């Protein structure tokens, strides 16, 4: 059965205290997860811990905490990737700096949790919260990021898009996400725009070459678990000459609006209007650059 990581739905018992395991190494972590397949992973614990009416934190019955596993704190950079360990806090990631972290992700970091929690909440924990599209997911998908999933005796990499899509890719008992890998491809335009009410997060990237559009990715996070990502639209915009004619921009924005409406019929007309405006603003900005 897939491990359900629904963020604020802790499986707690009000009477028994949680059983907490604190491994010191990755191998100990994997062994513990194998021995306790029903346990939940506790990274920063900021999404996992709800509030009980007794005033205590609502921690699931059995948790395996990551904070003692030092090598999961590692943030490493190669020519092609940035790799972020499952224990790296949002603050640690943002301290790597805007010259290394892709702008669309860097700009989203201050919006993930309140500042008093950035020092314990992790970026990988943000990706692993299920049941809603958390703040970092749209930029990470736009950037083509992947995660490493490990268990005793094996590991696999899958894209964040697939991990979040629910195509059977959720964690199996005994599995843990150990690393996040973000490609450091060059992009000429990168934006991240959250709506003030937190209902929409907009991430878009574009690369230009020889007066045309070489690649485009537009991803929108909503309250639903899956993001809005119209790959056909990305593909159609790719290869187009700049400046894009106004009617094409309007048509692209309208298509994104229709995709959003099909994605969530509960969107208000204001939400749909905002999506349309963000897409046209981004495409127009390519022309202006």
């Amino acid at each position: 059965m897939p491990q359900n990581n629904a963020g604020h739905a802790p499986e707690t018992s009000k009477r028994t205290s949680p059983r907490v395991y604190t491994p010191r190494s990755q191998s100990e972590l994997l062994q513990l997860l194998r021995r306790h397949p029903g346990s939940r992973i506790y990274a920063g614990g900021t999404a996992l811990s709800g509030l009980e009416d007794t005033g205590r934190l609502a921690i699931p019955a059995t948790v395996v905490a990551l904070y003692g596993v030092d090598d999961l704190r590692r943030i490493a950079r190669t020519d092609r990737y940035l790799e972020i360990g499952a224990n790296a806090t949002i603050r640690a990631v943002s301290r790597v700096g805007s010259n290394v972290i892709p702008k669309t992700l860097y700009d989203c970091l201050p919006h993930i949790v309140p500042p008093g929690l950035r020092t314990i909440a992790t970026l990988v924990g943000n990706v692993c919260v299920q049941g809603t599209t958390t703040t970092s997911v749209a930029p990470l998908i736009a950037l083509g990021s992947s995660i490493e999933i490990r268990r005793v005796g094996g590991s696999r990499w899958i894209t964040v898009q697939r991990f979040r899509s629910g195509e059977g890719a959720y964690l199996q008992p005994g599995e843990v996400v150990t690393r996040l890998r973000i490609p450091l491809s060059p992009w000429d335009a990168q934006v991240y725009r959250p709506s003030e009410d937190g209902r929409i997060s907009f991430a878009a990237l574009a690369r230009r070459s020889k007066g045309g559009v070489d690649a485009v990715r537009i991803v929108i996070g909503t309250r639903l678990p899956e993001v809005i990502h119209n790959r056909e639209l990305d593909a159609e915009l790719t290869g187009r000459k700049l400046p894009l004619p106004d009617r094409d921009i309007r048509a692209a924005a309208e298509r994104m609006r229709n995709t959003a409406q099909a994605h969530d019929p509960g969107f208000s007309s204001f939400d749909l209007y905002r999506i349309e405006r963000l897409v046209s603003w981004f495409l127009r900005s390519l022309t202006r650059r």
Partner: protein
Amino acid sequence: MRVRFTLNGKAVQVDAEPEARLSDVLMHHLEIASMRQDCSEGRCGSCLVIFEGIIVSSCMIPMFRVLGTEVVTIEGLFGSRDLRDIERGFQSTGFEPCRYCAAPKTLLTHAIISENTRPREEELEVQAQAVRCRCTSYQHFLEAIRNAAKQRRSRTRDI
């Protein structure tokens, strides 16, 4: 469970539920006078402490996580030159936080300038929002932190 940890430089031990909040234990078991808890969900920053060298909302820290760690509240700074730097920085800016937020804002300033006496502006702007306050200007608080950092630099000759 029995939780032993270091509080303001002294070894302490308390019997607490593993899922009890650090903020509650500091207020009710250890009677730390400066401790306050407002939102109880990590939003407002009234309950900030320095936990293992980092500033954090203690209402989201369960006691099982506190075992063997080091916790500092504003009481841990009393009488120190570090605190004097901050007071001077606040005074020279004319910044007077109210009784409710003076402790978390002072502790936050201490955490920021202890880590870097020349905090990067973009980092500073995010961190300074850790204490929610609707009655003083945020710019004024930023200026007070910059002046506290200046005091710290001149005292430690990091000019």
